[in-house]
């Protein structure tokens, strides 16, 4: 606080200009696209040509990245720790699934409706639970997810309950591109949707709104003091994150043609957290690293020894929290900084 009170000695205007320009530069730099940001997309396109047999897994990864992005918006930017984000992921999945199973198989409009329904559920539940803090909030997110899980489980007439939702019929994208057995269309469809979602996320986190979220994460009292409508901002972030989670769930439902209770489970909420942490929280690109790493490893190991998968991922988590906070991106940053410092 003392640094902001005017001092008796007049600040040198030249240094102030330099400081202002530097700040402007830093701000502009976050908006400008860096060449590095093309990497994930090049990798995604390359994967399409190099691994034609793994496109089904690929589309799952792309769709899950959206889910991780939506969780990152909450945890990494707004500082809201949630243990029940599967609630909104599952809402999207069931919305898209129920639409496709009941005679409306258009994927794009189904995706939008799923996003809307999830946003609505997020907005209503967020308005209720975001008034609480800390452990109570964590509990509330958990309970909301458990509540929806129980609804989907007991409304078996509509959702198929524990057997999962059967008989989805997804129409071709835009009436032109039929989902094929190899998963080519599904992969490109997911990639396109991910690209749009990433753009939205990138614009949002670099906007004044995104900055205010980070302010709330860092110091709520201060944000209240400077007049930020904290509760409303948090609710907006929660709703937007819910919409993204819904889109992710809907994509997975549409591309796999199946929705099971697992989409609403605590395991889903937990594993997405793990994927995000592996990549790095609050850095936008953590999702692009953590999700593929986790899901490819799971695909490889879980088929060989499913028992060991849980054990090793658990052990890995413990080590990550102890020694590598910040995930892969954190390690990368540290490495780059050391190199620059040494040069």
């Amino acid at each position, binding site marked *: 606080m003392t640094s902001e009170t005017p001092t008796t000695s007049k600040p040198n205007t030249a240094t102030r200009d330099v400081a202002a320009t530097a700040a402007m530069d830093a701000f502009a730099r976050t908006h400008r696209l860096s060449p590095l940001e093309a990497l994930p997309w090049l990798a995604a396109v390359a994967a399409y040509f190099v691994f034609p047999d793994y496109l089904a897994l690929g589309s799952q990864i792309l769709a899950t990245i959206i889910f991780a992005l939506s969780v990152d918006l909450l945890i990494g930017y707004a500082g809201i720790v949630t243990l029940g984000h599967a609630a909104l992921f599952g809402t999207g999945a069931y919305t898209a699934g129920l639409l496709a199973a009941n005679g409306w198989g258009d994927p794009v409009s189904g995706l939008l409706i799923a996003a809307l329904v999830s946003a609505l559920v997020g907005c209503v539940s967020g308005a209720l639970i975001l008034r609480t803090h800390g452990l109570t909030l964590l509990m509330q997110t958990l309970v909301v997810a458990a509540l929806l899980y129980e609804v989907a489980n007991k409304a078996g007439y509509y959702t198929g309950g524990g057997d999962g939702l059967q008989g989805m019929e997804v129409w071709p994208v835009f009436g032109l591109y039929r989902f094929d057995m190899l998963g080519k269309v599904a992969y490109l469809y997911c990639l396109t949707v991910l690209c749009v979602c990433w753009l939205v996320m990138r614009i949002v986190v670099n906007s004044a709104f995104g900055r205010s979220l980070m302010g709330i994460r860092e110091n709520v009292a201060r944000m209240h003091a400077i007049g930020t409508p904290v509760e409303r901002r948090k609710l907006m972030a929660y709703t937007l994150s819910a919409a993204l989670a819904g889109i992710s769930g809907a994509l997975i439902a549409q591309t796999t043609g199946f929705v099971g209770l697992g989409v609403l489970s605590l395991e889903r909420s937990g594993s997405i957290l793990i994927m995000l942490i592996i990549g790095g929280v609050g850095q936008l690109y953590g999702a692009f690293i953590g999700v593929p790493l986790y899901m490819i490893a799971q695909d490889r190991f879980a088929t060989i020894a499913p028992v060991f998968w849980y054990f090793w991922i658990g052990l890995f988590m*413990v080590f990550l929290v102890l020694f590598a906070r910040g995930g892969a991106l954190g390690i990368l940053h540290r490495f780059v900084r050391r190199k620059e410092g040494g040069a």
Partner: protein
Amino acid sequence: MSEYVPALISIAFHGLTLAMVLYLISVGLSVTMGLMGFVNLAHGAFAMAGGYVASTLLAHFGLPFAIAILLAVVVVTLVSVVLERLLYRRFYGGVELDQVLLTMGLIFISVGAATYIWGPLPQPMQIPRALQGGIDVLGRILPVYRLFLIICGAIIVTLLWLALERTRFGAQLRAAVDNLRMAETVGINTSRLFASAFALGSGLAALGGALGAEVFALTPGYALEHLVYFLIVVAVGGLGSIRGPFFAALMVGITDTALKYYVPELGAFFIYLLTMAILLRYPRGLMGT
């Protein structure tokens, strides 16, 4: 009128059993969360470990029931102290996200380890012959083992509460929950207090898991499956409270049993709704500090 009585007795009886097991398992979690400010999602893993170790001692080593249970409690308590000193301690009062991830990792380890050692199927618990069978209470046949469970639970709860009121450890614990810094200032060794409170909580969880293997079946997914119930008991009861979770467990146990008896199609839906409502009205729980 008279036809309702057996049903009500049955609900009260089974509800009470569930409540006792829930309380034994969850009370330690309340202390960890309230006193150390640590979200120990893996708390259920201690209960599961207690159950598995006791059932193995019974089935493979043929130990008497009481000794097997006691040994299981001792083993789990020792392991929990090691974990507390090595891992948990570093994160007390720290970032919530780290705690969630650490304990989520521990849950996954417990799932993997339990599947590896005991297999994916539910592990049966051998109950001694004296505790098998049922007795007739007002026209209802009630299982003897559950009656034993309620009596055991009542004795332990009484002892726990007496210890909290009468012993030096209890006084230190209450002081630290009320005001941690003040407690440190007057010379209470809080680091040691945390370790003993953690050990006591894990031991009670192991006891609850071993005795209550019939209520919460021993499967590798134990810690994850029942996590929501344990957390509900703690959050509704009030973090850091020893008595609060008891009333919360009673509420959850009896409501859950009654609803599953009368409206099974609702499942656990109502419990979750009730929890949400209570937490919105009382964010610090019914008896939170």
